[in-house]
């Protein structure tokens, strides 16, 4: 049931994407009760997810970027 700080942080990241198992979430909760640092990390991590959601981030696919590079080379 006891996990390292690094493991707790990785579980915390998985939880941001809804990919932490119930068992992992329990271990994280327990860890957070005695680790102020991980609690702070968890709070910031959740805030980061909110910021990413609010920003409506959009990006190009790798394929689109590759096509852009090809066109730039042709244009050159």
């Amino acid at each position, binding site marked *: 049931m006891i996990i390292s700080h*690094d493991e707790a*942080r*990785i579980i915390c*990241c*998985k939880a*941001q*994407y809804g*990919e932490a198992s119930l068992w992992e979430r329990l271990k994280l909760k327990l860890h957070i009760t005695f680790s102020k640092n991980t609690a702070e*990390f968890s709070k*910031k*991590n959740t*805030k*980061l997810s909110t*910021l*990413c959601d*609010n*920003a*409506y*981030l*959009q*990006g*190009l*696919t*790798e394929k*689109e*970027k590759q096509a*852009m*590079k090809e*066109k*730039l*080379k042709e*244009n*050159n």
Partner: protein
Amino acid sequence: MELSNNRMTMHQLNPEKWVDQYADYLFNYAVARVSDGEIAKDLVQETFFAGLNSAKNYKGDAAERTWLIAILKRKVIDHYRKINSNKGKAEVRINYNTNSDSEGDWLEEQVADPFSKLENDVLENEELGLAIHECISKLPKKQSLVFTMKTIKGISTEDICNELGINPSNLWVMIHRARTALMGCLNQNWF
């Protein structure tokens, strides 16, 4: 032939890195203004072409990205000029406040709508999006790629692992490092 050999000026332009470093940032900027992914993509491509063609004019006064943004701004303006060149087809969007009981002064109400936070939210979200993209561009290449695929494009863990030839443990370590770096990068202004 390397792009840089032909076009790079004495003021540190690196066209061969433009797509990797700035495409997402410029795309986010453009899509917020034209509300169409395909058009935004074309504008970014045109910006890179224009950048290449006017590389000799780059004096190094502004950062490379700032210079490209300046070109993109002109491309966006040109885009709107083009679509609005037929005056009858120009589109004006107004959100009417249907909650108001008052009659008559409807135009004034729209000009200063005390109930709407929409404009401020849009500006703030756009600024936030650009700040996040700037921070992502500072991440190591693989972390940036994994974070973008997972967070922005919403690709499944399994598909990312298959595409990049990594295992889920590696993926989560990279996501953890990327998120930690982003928290640090955004810390001053957004947390």
